[in-house]
């Protein structure tokens, strides 16, 4: 760097700040302003979610069956735990506990990797079932539930006669509460059975189900992948930032007077966690 940005005795105090407190306060205001920006960045997606859920409530209720609540719940737990260790790392840095700082940062990073690992399993499962975002969407049989697993949220695509009985045993299935889209669907399903005998074919793949009904489901997965994908990118960025801070922590850069970067990264991490805490119920727990 061509410019000498530093005070001789305090290697991490930039030249344009008066003292460490001045630098810390500026950084703190900066990171909070950045988090506001992040919230507004996600707000577009949340807004799109609200609008499409209001427009097609039945699609959201039904399609969320395809999401694995268990995995989502585990991931929620992982992230909340990582927020704890992130906060703990800040405390370690404030108290000058180098080992604790390294351990807590490492656990936070491991949790982030764990989260991404589970996310990877979820995504690959979705892709396997043909639940792609957008035009590649081609739901395969069982994509929206699998009876063999005995999932309470399961919806079986059965012939209309069977569906009636299914409704009695599974009152939680919101998708069979006679609104237009679904009546249309059931009707089409009946046609499919009569005309072609495609009993095993999921209606979302059935050529007789009108495009207008099918494509609404794509929007759910469009929103699902955009929201969780953007969140995942934030987790990855968090891994990079925390990893960099870990190397700095190992080199012993942080002291009770200079721990700003840990504090700011932890604030960012809490926000990433918080966004997931909203995403989880909004996407997974609709039923």
């Amino acid at each position: 760097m061509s410019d000498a940005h530093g005070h001789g005795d305090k290697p991490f105090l930039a030249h344009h700040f008066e003292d460490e407190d001045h630098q810390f306060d500026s950084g703190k205001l900066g990171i909070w302003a950045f988090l506001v920006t992040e919230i507004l960045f996600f707000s577009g997606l949340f807004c799109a979610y609200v609008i499409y859920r209001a427009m097609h409530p039945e699609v959201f209720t039904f399609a969320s069956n395809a999401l694995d609540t268990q995995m989502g719940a585990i991931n929620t737990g992982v992230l909340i735990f990582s927020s704890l260790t992130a906060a703990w790392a800040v405390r370690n840095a404030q108290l000058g506990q180098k080992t604790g700082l390294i351990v807590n940062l490492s656990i936070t990073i491991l949790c982030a990797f764990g989260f991404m690992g589970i996310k990877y399993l979820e995504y690959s499962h979705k892709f396997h079932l043909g639940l792609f975002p957008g035009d590649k969407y081609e739901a395969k049989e069982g994509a929206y539930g699998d009876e063999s697993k005995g999932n309470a949220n399961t919806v079986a695509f059965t012939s209309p006669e069977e569906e009636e009985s299914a409704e009695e045993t599974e009152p939680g299935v919101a998708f069979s509460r006679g609104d237009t889209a679904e009546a249309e669907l059931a009707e089409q399903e009946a046609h499919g059975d009569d005309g072609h005998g495609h009993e095993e074919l999921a209606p979302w793949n059935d050529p007789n189900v009108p495009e207008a009904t099918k494509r609404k489901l794509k929007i759910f997965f469009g929103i699902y992948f955009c929201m969780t994908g953007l969140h995942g990118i934030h987790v990855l960025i968090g891994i990079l930032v925390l990893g960099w801070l870990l190397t700095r922590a190992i080199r012993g850069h942080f002291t009770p007077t200079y721990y700003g970067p840990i504090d700011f990264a932890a604030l960012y991490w809490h926000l990433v966690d918080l966004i997931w805490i909203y995403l989880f119920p909004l996407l997974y727990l609709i039923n």
Partner: protein
Amino acid sequence: MTQVDIPVESPVRPVQHLDKNFINHSKGFLSWALTLDHKRIGLMYLVGISLSFFLGGLFALAIRLELFSPGMQFMDAATYNQVFTLHGAVMVFLFIIPGIPAALGNVVLPLMLGAKDVAFPRLNLCSYYLWLSGAAFFIWTLFSNGLDTGWTFYTPYSTSYTDTSVIQATAGVFMLGFSSIFTGLNFLVTIHKMRPPGMTWHKLPLFLWGMYGTAIMQLLATPVLGITLLLLIMETTLGIGIFDPQKGGDPVLYQHFFWFYSHPAVYIMILPAMAVVSEIIAAFSRKHIFGYRMIAYSSVSIALLSFLVWGHHMFVSSESTLATLIFSAITFTIAIPSAIKVFNWLATLYKGSVQLDTPMLYALGFMWLFTIGGLTGLFLAVLSTDVVLHDTYFVVAHFHYVMVGGTLFAFLGGLHYWWPKMTGKMYSETSGRIAAVTAFIGFNLAFFPQFIMGSRGMPRRYADYTADFELYHRLSTTGTLILGVGLALLAYTLLRSLFGGKKAPANPWGSATIEWECPSPPPHHNFDHPPLATDPYDMERVEWDEEVQGYVPAVGHRPTAH
């Protein structure tokens, strides 16, 4: 305020020039490419946005020459669509939005605060490279398939029908957006945390109040543009269907998202312009600014109101009657803080000793043009007239009066005003004034006829027109050429000053804000000690000094050491 009085017999004249300044203090490509110095970053921005302005200007010239006569002259309709789109996109995203904050603000804002740098110098450099990447993506757009969606990228045309390079362009805008966010964040924190002793919020120069309001909008509005463009890219590449009615999506949602950013963006463009004009008017009236607090508060209220009016871009896009009424009413209220500013500037001029130097000519030009642009905005805020005027040249003329007559003129005024500080050179006042007057005449000739043809029904974005409109289009094209001559003379004046200009004194205009207390151009670290701040518009504090050909602190107002 703490003021150090010095005996009259030992006047200390502040240093006017230094051998080592920020421009020559280190040499080599990397000393610029990796600099963390806000002044160098500001100069690099200035070069970048000036080139962008030149590029956008070439597109404007092509549009006007094509429209000189009815029928197609030298391009086909598809090319015309590309040219007007690229003109708009380049001018808005690469020039006007970053123009005043990133180029002038970067140089001036820390100096005005008596600070050594912005709060986050690395982030500042990062903003610059984001801007550069965004610009590179625009160049890529230009050399691949171009862009013909209009600068607004309306769906579903942009996602499903056009075969031009929407993805490159929107990815470029995405980066430019984050560049703008980081600049805003930096300035917000700098203004909060780096003020010198004595500078309370009510002693903040009005330029900084304007930049503060701008920063709020950059922080809160631009991320929404970011996510909108990301969704647009997802829509184009994957077809997620959020904005495409064919797939069950809603194209009007795109318009809401887009204008939720782009209306505040209009104020991101004009608020810094108002901030510059507030400084210039006070300095060249040699008088304390009138209604300081009202100007300051009106900046912030414009920033906040700007978030509540986006719907007025969609009066004819299936908005409900109730929504249009509310958006229309709030749009009217924006006229209040805007008018407060204009009246306060007028009152500052009143009984001032007005000096018609080049920056002042641009500032006065701004007041005329912005007033016309603002008042014609009311025609468009009225629901019944908007239905008629929507998508006509009346709209084109309106926003050019605000953006070119407003922002560009203020930018040029600010550029001349701070040029001696930035470069240490004085430009030729005569040719500067001639350029300013020429640009003013050319601009009015170019755009006033557009109001008339718009109200007579000439639709915007058309490549051809009937013979009825020929006179207006010819006047407009002629005006554009005159404006071009004015701008060319301006460029010549400024560039010439770099090589043959006189050395600038520390304070050539007699302004009382802090940036004029350090030598021209400033040294690398700006100030050895943070200067004490007093009233930024107390013009009595400085007096003309024949020897340095500039203003120096009046006897009795001189600090002990500098």
